[in-house]
């Protein structure tokens, strides 16, 4: 309302009232519209909220459902795992029982080999010998020759049976760990070899050996077999040289036994430790091919390694480690003294 209008109205109160009424009505209808608008908006918003609420409830119940499902699955999985575990345990028990029974069978077999196979061999050898002794003169040269062959065969099979038995004994035997000086074991093995060294010229070059944790009986067997090979394969040498010492390789102490014997070609090195494998003819060097297989089995039982280097007609060197078992610093003065 302009100032002029206002001035005019003030002049006419009727008109003023009319105008004011009109204005009021206008305002009123505006308010009604606004109210309607607001109501509408509130309704819309409420609907939106309801929807959101519903959505949340749905989500919530979905989550709840998922949780339940998950819990169920976890329970299921746990049960499955438990069953699996039980099955595994049962299988382990079964396997252990099987192994134990196989072991027992093997022992029975070995026992039977030891006892029953040797007896007929002894009889073959014995009666052939008696035949030769008591009826030799009645036999032809050829017949006597055949009988000698029979005896050789029986004795050789006896040796094979014995060697096989000792190999199987090594396989079955548990390692009885002791700290022991290898020098002492070497000396014992060397002493046992005396009969094989009769009439031989052998230069022994033996360095002090370390103290290690090992099975003394088994480790002595390793030396016995390696030394016996060294003595055997240097037989053609007028002066045999056998050297025993240690060296360090990859931070580990390696014991070696070296000889200047007939050696072998490295071509066959992979066959060396195989059971019944021989690289020499029976006429040249006797043996059953079990010695080095036994050595390998013993060293492996100790967690060590064994290998060889050789040159044909020059000599061979056998190396072995005794796992990580070496006693590097011994505080025992007696033990130290023994090494010197």
């Amino acid at each position, binding site marked *: 309302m302009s100032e002029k209008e206002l001035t005019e109205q003030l002049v006419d109160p009727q008109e003023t009232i009319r105008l004011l009424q009109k204005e009021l009505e206008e305002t009123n209808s505006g308010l009604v519209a606004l109210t309607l608008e607001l109501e509408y908006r509130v309704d819309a918003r409420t609907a939106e909220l309801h929807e959101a609420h519903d959505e949340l409830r749905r989500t919530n119940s979905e989550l709840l459902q998922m949780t339940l499902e998950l819990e169920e699955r976890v329970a299921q999985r746990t049960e499955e795992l438990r069953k699996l575990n039980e099955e595994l345990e049962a299988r382990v028990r079964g396997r252990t029982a099987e192994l134990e029974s196989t072991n027992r069978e093997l022992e029975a077999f070995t026992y039977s080999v030891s*006892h029953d196979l*040797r007896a007929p061999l*002894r009889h073959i*050898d*014995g009666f052939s010998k008696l035949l030769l002794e008591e009826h030799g003169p009645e036999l032809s040269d050829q017949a006597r020759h055949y009988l000698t062959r029979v005896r050789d065969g029986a004795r050789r099979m006896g040796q094979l049976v014995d060697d096989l038995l000792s190999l199987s004994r090594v396989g079955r035997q548990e390692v009885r760990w002791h700290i022991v000086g290898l020098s002492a074991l070497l000396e014992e093995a060397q002493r046992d070899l005396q009969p094989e060294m009769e009439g031989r010229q052998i230069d022994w070059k033996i360095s002090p050996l370390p103290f290690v944790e090992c099975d003394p009986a088994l480790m002595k067997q390793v030396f016995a077999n390696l030394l016996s090979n060294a003595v055997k394969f240097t037989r053609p040498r007028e002066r045999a040289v056998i050297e025993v010492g240690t060296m360090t390789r990859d931070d580990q102490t390696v014991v070696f036994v070296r000889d200047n014997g007939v050696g072998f070609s490295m071509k066959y090195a992979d066959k060396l430790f195989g059971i019944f494998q021989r690289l020499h003819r029976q006429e040249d060097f006797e043996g059953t091919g079990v010695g080095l297989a036994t050595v390998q089995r013993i060293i492996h039982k100790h967690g060590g390694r064994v290998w060889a280097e050789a040159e044909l007609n020059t000599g061979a060197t056998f190396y072995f480690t005794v796992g990580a078992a070496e006693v590097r610093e011994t505080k025992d003065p007696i033990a130290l003294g023994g090494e010197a």
Partner: protein
Amino acid sequence: MTGDEIGILLVEDNPEDVELTLHALRQQHLANDIQVVRDGEEALDFLFCRGPYGQRSFESPPRVVLLDLKLPKVDGLEVLRQIKSDPRTKAIPVVILTASREEKDMINGYHLGGNGYIQKPVDFDKFRETVKQLGLYWLVVNEPPPASAFRVR
């Protein structure tokens, strides 16, 4: 003295082994007073003077028993156990003479009171030498237990 003294009781089921052992002893002129029994039960009957050996006396036991381990009926270790657990027989020297070189047999043999353990060699020359030494040692060199050792005190 009852006149039934014997030198060696050979407990051996295998006829070839019996023959070879007797042959070896005969060559040493030690086979005259040897008694052979063929299973564990017969060995026990003989040593405990019962059954077919009921006429024997505990006071004239063999100078030595050569005992195989693998025997029919009663095995060698059981025979040894019974000999060594009875005061009337425990003083009898028992030498195990077997083909087995199994450690557990050796341990059991000595634990049960065996007086020796000998593995029969396959090589007949060695076998004969072994039997000869055994015979000479137990029948000639060794001083047997006095008769009172077999009486129950």
